[in-house]
């Protein structure tokens, strides 16, 4: 026992130290990475041309030291020779203004670009045996024990029969096992219990669609977009921070990038769930059909019927993967903007999914559980950190001060009450 504890402490301390050190070293670069993913990744790659030029080696290309800041603030207004050449090369696309980025932000992004190294393919299996092995073991053990118990019972009855015969006690012929009422009753009860358990669970699970993975009208891979190309989730699902719906991007938004990207040349192999290979370029062509875009002339089809959209263009009818019942009110912005949750918390590692499937159960128990455990960004009066909105919870402030509470969970502020989600 004491050895175990020692080992545990050793491991714990080393992990702690590693994390601490890596945080210190990584923090600046991490900011740059986050900013890059949020602002740049939808159009730029570090190592190769994308909607915009590859950014690696930018320092050698720019005409002057401060040029990059001016360019980022307002690309359209830069008229020097390099800027003009750049614009001519990437016509008609022009880079978005980023006046909101401060100098240090830009420095962070640039540092990230300079330090960037191509990702190394993971070697060897990193996964560990999880709990499922244990339960199998327990199951086998139970079965073995049950068999032993059965044999012992049989041995017991045989021995008793032998001893009875010896002592001359007359007993009725023993009933064979399959006619033994006790065993039959036990069997029936067991079946009833099991049947009941599965029926109830099945009934509870009606309408729940964990792992639901419908085939979409276009093979759209989040792995390619969010994973390999590192496009920020919010670039396409901007509603997640403003609205109850994360919203699916409009076709025109897809075309922001795909006007330039008309071939799939990515490193990932595109494979459907059933194993068939997918031609990425053909899927992009499907998008062009929806958008009414002519890939050869690189223009939208003319609008001859005057309905305000290019001829042949029509919205994409995606199949909704995550369905909540109508009586549930769910607000993305509450969770993303106020609760500061990651998309992956509920949607799983979406950046690794070729085709999206429902990762969580989306059951009420699953929601409630998270609300019970998650701490809110509670306002700390002493150092004015946290969300100031929570300053109204005077009682909790007192309790925290006096040590009665150590943190405030979503449940504490009413996050498990019916009318937080049902109205």
């Amino acid at each position, binding site marked *: 026992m004491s050895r175990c504890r020692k080992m545990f402490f050793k491991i714990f301390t080393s992990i702690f130290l590693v994390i601490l050190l890596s945080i210190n070293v990584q923090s600046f670069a991490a900011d740059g990475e986050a900013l890059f993913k949020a602002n740049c990744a939808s159009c730029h790659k570090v190592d190769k041309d994308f909607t915009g030029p590859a950014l690696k080696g930018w320092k050698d290309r720019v005409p002057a030291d401060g040029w990059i800041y001016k360019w980022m603030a307002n690309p359209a207004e830069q008229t020097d020779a390099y800027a003009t050449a750049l614009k001519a090369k990437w016509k008609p696309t022009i880079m978005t203004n980023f006046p909101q980025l401060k100098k240090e932000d830009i420095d962070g992004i640039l540092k990230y670009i300079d330090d960037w190294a191509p990702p190394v393919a993971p070697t060897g299996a990193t996964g560990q045996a999880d709990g499922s092995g244990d339960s199998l073991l327990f199951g086998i053990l139970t079965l073995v024990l049950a068999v032993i118990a059965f044999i012992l019972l049989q041995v017991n009855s045989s021995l008793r029969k032998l001893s009875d015969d010896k002592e001359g006690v007359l007993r009725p012929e023993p009933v064979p096992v399959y006619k033994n009422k006790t065993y039959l009753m036990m069997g029936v009860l067991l079946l009833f219990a099991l049947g009941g358990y599965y029926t109830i669970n099945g*009934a509870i699970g*009606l*309408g729940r*669609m964990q792992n639901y993975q*419908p085939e979409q009208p276009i093979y759209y891979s989040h792995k390619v977009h969010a994973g390999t190309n590192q496009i920020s989730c919010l670039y396409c699902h*901007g*509603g997640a921070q*403003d*609205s*109850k*719906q994360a*919203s*699916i*991007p*409009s*076709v*025109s*938004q897809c075309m922001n990038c795909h006007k330039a990207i008309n071939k799939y040349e990515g490193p990932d192999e595109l494979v459907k769930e059933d194993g068939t290979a997918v031609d990425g370029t053909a899927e992009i062509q499907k998008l062009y059909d*929806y*958008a009414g875009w002519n890939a050869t002339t690189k223009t939208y089809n003319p609008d001859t019927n005057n309905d305000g*959209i290019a001829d042949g*263009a*029509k*919205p*994409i*009818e*995606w*199949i*909704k993967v995550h*369905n909540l*019942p*109508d*009586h549930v*009110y769910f*607000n993305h*912005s*509450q969770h993303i*903007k*106020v609760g500061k949750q990651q998309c992956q918390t509920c949607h799983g590692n979406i950046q690794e999914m070729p085709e999206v499937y429902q990762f969580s159960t989306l059951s009420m128990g699953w929601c409630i559980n998270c609300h019970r455990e998650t701490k809110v960004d509670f306002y700390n009066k002493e150092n004015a950190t946290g*969300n*100031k*909105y929570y*300053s*109204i*919870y*005077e*009682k*909790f402030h007192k309790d925290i001060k006096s040590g009665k509470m150590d943190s405030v969970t979503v449940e504490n*502020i*009413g996050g498990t*009450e*019916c*009318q*937080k989600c*049902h*109205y």
Partner: protein
Amino acid sequence: MSNKKYWQSFGELNQTASFEESTKNEFKEELLPLADLDDKGILDAQTPRRDFLKYLGFSTAAAALAASCETPIRKAVPYLNRPDNIIPGVPNYYASTYINGGDAISVVVKQRDGRPIKIEGNELSTITNGGTNAQAQASVLDLYDNTRLRYPMQKDGSGFKEVTGFDAFDNMVGAAIAGKAVALLTSTVNSPSTLAIIEEFKVKYPTGRHIQYDAISYSGMIQANEACYGKKAIPSYHFDNAKVIVSLGADFLGTWISPTEFSNQYSKNRKISGEQPELSKHFQFESTMSLTGSNADDRYTHKPSETGAVAVAILNALNGAAASFSDTKLNEGIRLAATNLKSAAGNALVVCGSNDVNIQIVINAINEAIGANGKTINWAIRSNYKKGIDGDMVTLINDMNSGAIGAVLIHDVNPVYSYSDSKKFKDALAKVVSVSFNGTMDETTELCKYILPSHHWLESWGDAEPKTGYYSLLQPTINPLFKTRAWQTSLIKWSSAAGSMVNDYETYFKTYWNAKLGSTDLYNKALQDGVIEPSAILPITAGTFSNSKLTEAITAAASVQSGAVEIILYQKISIGNGSQANNPWLQELPDPITKVTWDNYAMISPAMALSLLNLDVMNQERGKQSDYEVHPEKPVIKITVNGKSVQLPVIVIPGMNAATIALAVGYGRESASKETTADNIGKSANGAGKNVYPLVSFNGTNSYSSVATVEKTDTKYPLAQTQVHGFTESRPVIYETNLKSFVANPESVLEEITKEKIAITIGGSKDFVKDATIYPDYDKPGIKWGMSIDLNTCTGCSACVVACTAENNVSVVGKMQVQRAHEMHWLRIDRYFTGDLENPDVVFQPMLCQHCDNAPCENVCPVAATNHSSEGLNQMTYNRCIGTRYCANNCPYKVRRFNWLDYTGADSFADNQNPMVGTYMDASVMQMNDDLTRMVLNPDVTVRSRGVIEKCSFCVQRLQETKLEAKKQQDPKLVRNVKVACMQACPTNAISFGNVNDKQSDIYKIRNVEQTHRAFYVMEQLHVLPNVSYLAKVRNTERHIGVEEETNAAV
């Protein structure tokens, strides 16, 4: 407490046996299949065990089948090009203007994902200050009315055929009206750009003219003003400057000229504030019990024919002459009113609802004599709501008959329905080329040759100038749903020269306002604000008064022919003149006085009920009054005026003049052939009431009152009344006092209840909340929501009821279901009578879920579907409710509603309700199930299905939205911006709402600082600890009211 102070019905007042009986069965349902088990045992029941098992088996199988079907595939279809300003799921708000006839209210339209779903008042408008009325609130539903016309049409035999393309229509009509004298027949137009277009139109058709026709006209007033002030117009009124208000039958809080504006002004002097509170003094002289009359401090009744005489008597009384009516109370009232008017030194106002020129001249003379002209009457700014002159219509019809007018273009009027001599108009219409721009196939449109439906106001550009210099702009909030076109565009096209640059109204409108405002920036700002108002408030200016016609007018006004029985026609706050008759929200809105829905009826006094029907509602020993009140079937009477008669059921209302029968216009809409009414005019309007416009008589101006003969019939007709559906078992719910006692001793008004509370609290403790119960006290650590309703400023206008319906997807149940007490309104307005049985005082009390902190409903729910939140909300969880209705039984306020049927089509099975229609459910309910109509539903609120209880949620979706915004901005102060739907709709700001834990909030201040002597909770002694407080009513009268009255009566 045997002598009740406040009563809702005669039965309650007299405690009759059948009333007692009726109150026992709260839900009034005939029970479903297992009804008759009562005392016979299960085997002898009509529905034996086997049937029970069949039902059980079927429902289990059906449920299993329905549940195990494959999960449907749901699509998510994003935009092709998302507009910049739309984020799916986030509403946008656009300023616009509600237009109906001449009515114009500046509003803000809430638009969700491209659909307008809610109307709010525009707080930038100084006319309404953000107030609305029931009709404006309901008008969003008119947009999705499935009777709206979908394309231009032309007459084809007995029916109509579609005209494809507007150009084809233009060519056809252009040819038809070319060279003819074209008359433009519209409702009052106060849009400056439209008036400019009409002027241009008249240039092209010089022989034509523009006639403005108001279904209920103010012609008498306009003509009287022409005689007295030389101005053919209506001035603007300042009820906020009036310390004394005398109204002669003018329902200025309900329907008269601009009720939303006047309610807002009136309420300013009806609020109690400060140490020495002052109130305006409001006298009402009238024949029927109007909404305004029910709010008056002192109210007197007279026959409709005596209106002129009363006006003359007030004029004379100002000079000291005593009135000489046979009714001494009336004489005393006139003396009191005159004394008060005189002493107000000009801060007084006399208004009159009569459409008689002579009476209005006398009223002008009174206002001149008391100095109101220039203080409360402003001639510098005119009211442009109503401009119709009755004589013009008569001339028009004559000219149509004679051929002097060859073509009539009709917009927004329906004279075939609302004109007194409908037949004459119909005949004249047949002789001319007729074009209708009306949006639905109404009585007039179906007789026209060409139809080019105009947009609904929510689809339109436009402007309005309700008062001189005060503009309100319209902008479309949705693309036109159908092939409709702005009627102004038609006028422009038909009158402009070929090749003209401007040939549609949108361009015209933009050019017009850009030029008028000087720049695009100012234009955009004006559109965003919705209103353009004078930068400085102009001083109130008097008109120059001439009394040349006065003597003549006095003689004429005092000598109107009178009769033993007289009728008076009035408008209801819901249906108004009948243009919105197919709006189910308005049809189901109970009238504030009679509480009747879906019908009009003859309002009569108890005295007339006794003499005419031998129905003695005042005395429980005689007559069969109980039957009358308890059963929906009411006796029908036949009223005849000038040879035209109408049969209507009676409603007995105390406070009616004994000789007067009051009839509401706006009902009885009917197509030429009865079968097509439901399709053309609508399922809701079909069969609702009778048309009483034919009883209007014309003698220079339209007269809305006449001498009549009346006789009883043997028939009965059911009326769906909502009052006494929620009955409070004799517990006191209203506290009231008069101003003098309140100033003398503010504590007196709540003395009784305060004593009672102390008596039931554990000895020695003063903490009623904690120490009068065995239940524990729960913390409300963050927010605690609370509402306060001021009974002093609540006028009963019911805008809140419709606002609540629109915001919370409250279903329409139809007349049959209202009769069975199944109405769904989350917020109702209870009407109580008190005092003098012949002329009682009226108190309105909005009643909604009180969100009790110690709620009786919560304890009895077997599945915990209703429980309490840490913010003080009584939460109702529909998907958990199994429909036992224990909670509704246990609610002392009777505010919980049960979904008896699938009113909204929310059940899983399509067409589930079809077998119900006709037997349990009216066709009008199905109107709300239409795909088009369902576009009005608020996507943030669950649409409830059959079998669950629902009730007021304090607009929890709005509370959550406000909190989310405050959290995003990290600013708790933003919570103070919260507005619930009823509060936002209220024109008098009678409702306050907020966080009681926030000491800076209005609600905290009202309860604990400003109105401590008036704030009470209904049935507080039950210790249910409601979160809705009321402020006791204070009347400015010399009479003793409330508690004191009883003591006095006893002496």
